[in-house]
């Protein structure tokens, strides 16, 4: 990282691509060039871009299953406490530990907690909500939620060099190349 980019507070360099195919090819190329701190942007998820960007498997599954287990064990413990330990009700001598009848509530609470894990875990992994971001300074970037396909190589990347990155993006077919500043 050159000294000037730090002083300039540069976030990264943004380039636009024409379509999903070019974006995937560009991601492949950037990845092959050894960049780590970059991201691609598209209005919808693109098939196969995870491989092109060499993304690691999402950790979300682990978050969901841990929430689900808390729901499962927690709801059982709650019902056990309420129906057996804290206020046992003797109904014609029937068993207090009536597990079959508890299944519906245990199931529902397991699903509920898992869903919380799936939604809030996803936002957590994505670092959202994040209401401002240097990329929002770019007027052109507004197309990313409409029909624009973008790549941004971040200045944090150890290989980052303004000129090198600009040529790389241009060679990959990028247009509207602009420097993004964090201010």
């Amino acid at each position: 990282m050159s000294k000037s980019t730090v002083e300039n507070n540069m976030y990264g360099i943004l380039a636009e691509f024409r379509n999903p195919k070019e974006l995937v090819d560009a991601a492949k190329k950037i990845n092959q060039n050894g960049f780590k701190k970059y991201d691609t942007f598209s209005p919808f998820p693109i098939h196969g871009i995870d491989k092109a960007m060499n993304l690691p498997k999402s950790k979300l599954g682990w978050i969901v299953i841990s929430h689900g287990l808390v729901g499962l064990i927690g709801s059982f413990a709650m019902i056990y406490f309420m129906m057996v330990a804290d206020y046992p009700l003797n109904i014609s001598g029937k068993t207090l530990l009536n597990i079959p009848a508890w299944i519906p509530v245990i199931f529902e609470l397991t699903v509920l907690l898992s869903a919380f894990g799936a939604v809030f875990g996803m936002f957590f992994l994505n670092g959202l909500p994040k209401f401002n971001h240097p990329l929002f300074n770019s007027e052109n970037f507004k197309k990313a939620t409409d029909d624009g396909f973008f790549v941004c190589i971040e200045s944090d990347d150890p290989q980052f060099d303004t000129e090198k990155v600009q040529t790389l993006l241009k060679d990959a077919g990028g247009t509207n190349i602009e420097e993004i500043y964090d201010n």
Partner: protein
Amino acid sequence: MSKTYEYVPEPALVKGNHDFKSLTALITDINMRPTPKGWYIAFGISNILLFVLLFSIGYLIWEGTGIWGLNAPAGWGWAIINFVWWVGIGHAGTLISAILFLFRQDWRTAINRFAEAMTIFAVMCAGIFPAIHVGRIWVIYWVFPIPNQMAMWPNFNSPLLWDVFAVSTYFTVSLLFWYVGLVPDLATIRDRIKSKIGKVLYGTFALGWRGSNRHWWNYEKSYMILAGLATPLVLSVHTIVSFDFAVSLIPGWHTTIFPPYFVAGAVFSGFAMVLTLMIIVRKIYGLEEIMTVDHIEKMNIIIMVTGSMVGFAYLMEFFVAWYSGVEYEKAIFILRATGPYAWAYWIMITCNVISPQVFWSKKLRRNVAFTFFISIVVNIGMWFERFVIAVTSLSTDFLPSSWGYYSPTFWDVITYVGTFGLFFTFFLLFLRFLPMVAVAEIKAILPQADPHNYDEKGEFNPPKVEIPEPVKDSEQKG
């Protein structure tokens, strides 16, 4: 055996010559245009009905459940019927958004946002009834496991308590699923809208979404897990609703067929409701290229299938009643078809069993006006199904000396009518302020979205339909 084969290619999911930009404009411009006059009229009418609902609930709380037509022997009436009816309608939304997603039915993207919104508002309408029917609504919190002044806990062995957990979980999960789907589309509006207030509001709810593929990667995983969670959830919810009846000992209720039969009925009525709303909306907002006749046809097939399942369940109930050898069980089914409520029973049979069978005809399946008519007939039929189940079994059960005829009162009727006010108030707000088609999802099913549909130079090269050779007789034998 000689036969001429004709290869029918899969119809395009989005009609017309749309690209990403035109789809964004088609859908989100609806939210950014000035409000149409017709919307205010519809919203005004819905608001009046909403006030009718609020007033009738207010009077109910003031006066007590005696204002309804409930009395011995029928202690359950319109409130439970309306509850089951509205919850059932909601199920189609989850079916479309979750189950069809897991089955990779890409056509669902045109209607899933819409149907999920319907689910949420239908469950709100449903939830009102069990809450207000308790009589002393100020202690409704007793249904939740919250420490209270009696130091007692709710009874987790009771189906009515299962219902509380099932419906509240269902509402929460549906809302989360809907919101997750909305986030990228809210970001689309945030980036397009001109007004300052709009920018702040849409921007807040879009949570700073910027379409990063590192985010989409987790997002898609989350969406799939939610679909996987919502699928057993939706089946469990109507199963538990049917347990309200099936776990009791009343003849006609105490049957094991209830869970699958209720779920099939729920999907049946829900699809009909989606069609009713969709046929109006696609016309008014000019979305015929997205919600095409092909969609209507596919939904009609689902209505036909689930309608036949419901019809089969009616037959099976009769068979099992006879086969069980239980006198009361046999009697109630004969009474349903011939007794004091025979009129309701035959309305139910006509609307639910006979009417969907017309969709064997391809011509009628693709007829929009006719579909609209049948969708309303089906919803009437499904309301009567719940009426027949709830009312006949209670009013003519074990002891003929305690039989009675149940009729609703004025307040029963206007509370039900009022729930339409609640439903349409929210639905109209949804149509006005939120993208009614999942913009990001529908873009992803365009042929332009698949990187494989581009040539080496990066030019779009639409996939050619390969017509397979018909299998020759000799090959079949070999």
